[in-house]
């Protein structure tokens, strides 16, 4: 079906109103002073009927691949099934209509949800205090690094550096820089892992923290993690763990036991809240008890009359978000945790690892594995076996779309040339994985037989390859009322 769907601004007709909430008829109040009144008549805002609006957005929805419609092996993003019952729960009026400033006595159900989630995250991480306020993983990182900074400042120490492995997510160095830190890259071994001796050699009293992702972005467990964290602690540093890959750890290893001092959770990954095309997420931060006083406030406390909020103390890094965080996301994460329970979460991790190990085993004959270390929940291939065909990682990714799969994460981590980072998650069946393997093998064959075909992929999608260079060179970032979406 090749129906076109113009921009919403190119639809409708003047005078049409899609929706009017009604409400009481009132005496019109005196107008605002002229200089405060909107003076552009809201020109450009479209005017459509309800059906036109519905059709428009339903059509747009049909142009998306999504985890619920398609295998979505986007590495590092944990695109598992998002249980639809959570959508019902989040829309219960008792939650949806609850204003954040009602007295805590009238919001005990919501506070119980938050308290239960805090307890669950502490049990899973082995840490001792947690804030649910950060709105996303990256904001959690920022919060965690501010905690690190406040901890050292409180001890009169001006440590200026943070150690980060080259394979880390870009948000790690960006969050560190945000807190005023210089970033020092830590080399990894030929097996793709951190080495405690190297870390110890790099450590000194100018280092505030090591930021480590475990499993790392190659999908490999940092086997030396206990000695690595010891080396950091020995010189007075803290260890921050990026919790992006927590789906590989439940029932396998707790960050607190590894020697981690601070971490963020990406609830939209491990705890299956919908990614929403890029948010909303939630990025709670857990710490050791000795760092609790630096967390953002307000904090949940239990008193004689139930749960309430208590302002953070003077050492807190302060708020990172208005009110109490992305409650609707936190709610869904708790629903997921309670539905599965402790044993269920452990099973999640084991089967996520099994699925990744299976894909790794099935694909390694045709695609090059840069590290032969056993993988956890995801595996990373390079483009080496394609090198003599002229076909690139990007071409493979685009061709996968023709086979009805979303593409893996590509060209990340940066330490692997032409990386293809595949995270199947535990909710996929063996049949789906087999079909994906078959597609990858077929593409590897096509790379030899008809490389030109691959370089122009995708062919079966509604859009052919889009010109990203043009978009960046001549940015058109909005529609304009006159002359359609012409360049500004």
């Amino acid at each position, binding site marked *: 079906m090749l129906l076109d769907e113009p*921009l919403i601004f190119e639809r409708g007709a003047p005078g049409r*109103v*899609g929706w009017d909430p009604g409400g009481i008829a*009132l005496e019109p109040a005196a107008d*605002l002073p002229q200089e*405060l009144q909107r*003076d552009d008549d809201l020109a450009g*805002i*479209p005017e459509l009927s309800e059906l036109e*609006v519905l059709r428009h957005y339903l059509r*747009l*929805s049909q142009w*998306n*691949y*999504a*985890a619920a*419609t398609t295998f*979505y092996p986007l590495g590092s993003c944990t695109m598992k*099934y*998002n249980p639809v019952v959570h959508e019902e*729960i989040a*829309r219960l009026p008792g*939650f*949806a209509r609850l*204003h954040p*400033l009602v*007295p*805590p006595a*009238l*919001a005990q*159900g919501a506070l119980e949800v938050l308290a239960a989630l805090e307890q*669950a995250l502490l049990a899973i991480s082995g840490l001792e205090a947690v804030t649910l306020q950060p*709105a*996303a993983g990256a904001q959690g990182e920022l919060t965690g690094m501010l905690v690190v900074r406040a901890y050292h400042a409180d001890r009169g120490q001006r440590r200026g550096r943070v150690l980060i492995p080259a394979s880390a997510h*870009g*948000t790690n160095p960006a969050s560190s820089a945000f807190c*005023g830190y210089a*970033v020092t890259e830590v080399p990894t071994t030929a097996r793709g892992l951190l080495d405690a001796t190297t870390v110890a050699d790099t450590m000194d009293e100018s280092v505030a923290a090591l930021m480590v992702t475990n499993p790392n972005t190659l999908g490999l467990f940092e086997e030396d993690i*206990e000695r690595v964290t010891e080396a950091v602690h020995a010189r007075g540093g803290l260890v921050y763990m990026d919790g992006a890959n927590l789906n590989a750890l439940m*029932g396998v*290893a707790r960050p607190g036991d590894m020697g981690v001092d601070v971490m963020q959770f990406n609830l939209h990954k491990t705890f299956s809240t919908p990614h*929403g*095309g890029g948010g909303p997420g939630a990025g709670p931060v857990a710490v050791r008890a000795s760092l609790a006083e630096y967390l*953002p406030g307000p904090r949940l406390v239990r008193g004689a009359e139930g749960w309430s909020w208590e302002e953070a103390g003077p050492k807190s890094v302060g708020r990172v*978000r*208005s*009110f*109490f965080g992305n409650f609707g*996301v936190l709610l869904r994460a708790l629903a997921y945790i309670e*539905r599965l329970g402790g044993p*269920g*979460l452990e099973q999640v991790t084991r089967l996520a690892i099994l699925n990744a190990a*299976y894909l790794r085993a099935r694909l390694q004959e045709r695609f090059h594995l840069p590290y032969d270390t056993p993988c956890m929940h995801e595996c990373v291939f390079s483009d080496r076996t394609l090198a003599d065909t002229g076909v690139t990682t990007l071409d493979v990714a*685009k061709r996968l779309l023709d086979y009805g799969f979303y593409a893996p994460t590509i060209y990340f981590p940066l330490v692997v040339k032409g990386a293809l980072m595949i995270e199947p998650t*535990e*909710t996929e069946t063996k049949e789906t994985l087999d079909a994906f393997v078959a597609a990858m093998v077929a593409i590897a064959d096509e790379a030899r037989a008809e490389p030109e075909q691959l370089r122009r992929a995708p062919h079966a*999608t509604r859009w*052919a390859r*889009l010109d990203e260079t*043009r978009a960046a060179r001549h940015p058109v970032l909005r529609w304009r009322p006159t002359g359609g979406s012409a360049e500004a």
Partner: protein
Amino acid sequence: MSAYTPHTAADIAAMLAAVGAGSLDDLIAQVPASLRARARVDLPAGCSEPELRARFAARASRNSGAESVAFLGAGAYPHHVPAVVNHILLRSEFATAYTPYQPEVSQGTLQAIFEFQTFVALLLGLDVANASMYDGASALAEAVLMAHRLEPKRRLVAVARSLHPHYRAVLATYLRGLERLEVREISWADDGRLDRGALDAVLGESLLCVAVGQPNVFGVLEDVAALSARAHAVGALVVSATPEALALGLVRSPGSTGADIAVAEGQSLGLPLSYGGPGVGLFATHERFVRFMPGRLVGETVDANGRRGYVLTLATREQHIRRERATSNICTNQGLCALAVTVYLSMLGRQGLRRLARRNYDAAHAVAARLGEIGAERRFAAPFFNEFVIRAPQVVARWEQLAREGLIAGFPLGCWYPELQDCLLVCVTEIHTPEEIDRLVDAMRACAEGHVGGRSGACCLTNP
């Protein structure tokens, strides 16, 4: 064993065989035994879907505040949401996609964001908007950081004390890594607007920007044009923050009154209160500043066949390319919430938006007039949108008691501003019925006339 995993025993056996492992435990043999031994997830067993529903329904029922007659705004606003908005948000094609890295199969998300950027730019009256931020408060903080990138030599940040306290608090947090910058709070004048004298005192060549709420936390509309003229005269930037975005249907846009960076909280436009989140931050600025902007951007382009389409663009500002030199550490946006705003504004349309904003304005003014008649005078004389401050010490004293009886008669501002201990911030929108308004007026009259005994006082639950 686990609710959502599909593996049969035969699947597991076949997959282990393909891997060459004897058991699931073999797959984690590389994890030190010392860690594995202590790693049990110490949580109760799971439950069925009906049990889960019942458990959460019971919790929801313990939020009696959700059924209160509440005249609460103060940064989160109760409005009706069209059924179409929810219907679209429930589409798994939108809800379970992620960052549109593969634009050929993500045009739904991308076109919707492009439309969102356009709506935001139109509403805020500026050239370009990003794909959204976490919320209004963090958007304000990011705006000040962007001003700092534009004018790195200037070090003074003037912030209206009447800007929502959570916005000021988040700004303070975000500035912790930038010790060069100094925040100076500017008080309000007697009419509730920014104090001109206090502003004049900070004008000078070290002034980086002036950050002001429009409306401010008292619901008062600032004279942004006048303060912009003064700030611009010394080369400073103006940053405006709109916590109640519906006001923009009636009130002159920040951009047209001189704001250089305008942000807003979009919750009012199609999102439920949901105990304060998720919301969505709107962020717009001048075209010439675009390369200094934080956050994702979607731009128009064509595909290999010349068909119009959309892609993520100008990514060289962002953390995954630039790492520690990025304009922000932000990775995603608030995609689904931005979609809600987009569908909501499409449903209202130009006339619906203006009409709804006007209805809020009229309703709030009608209630303010009635409260004035019973002696609850407005504390500030400047124009307002759908929220206003009254002096009502007897009501404040009985606020918690009234709340327990199911009437939340506004927000006691003493929680945030000690000098406004006897004041309530009252918000009226299209959701309030004549009966509910009567109940508010009657309760306030009873308090004022001393017909109700006892004293419980207001509880301060969220100081900044």
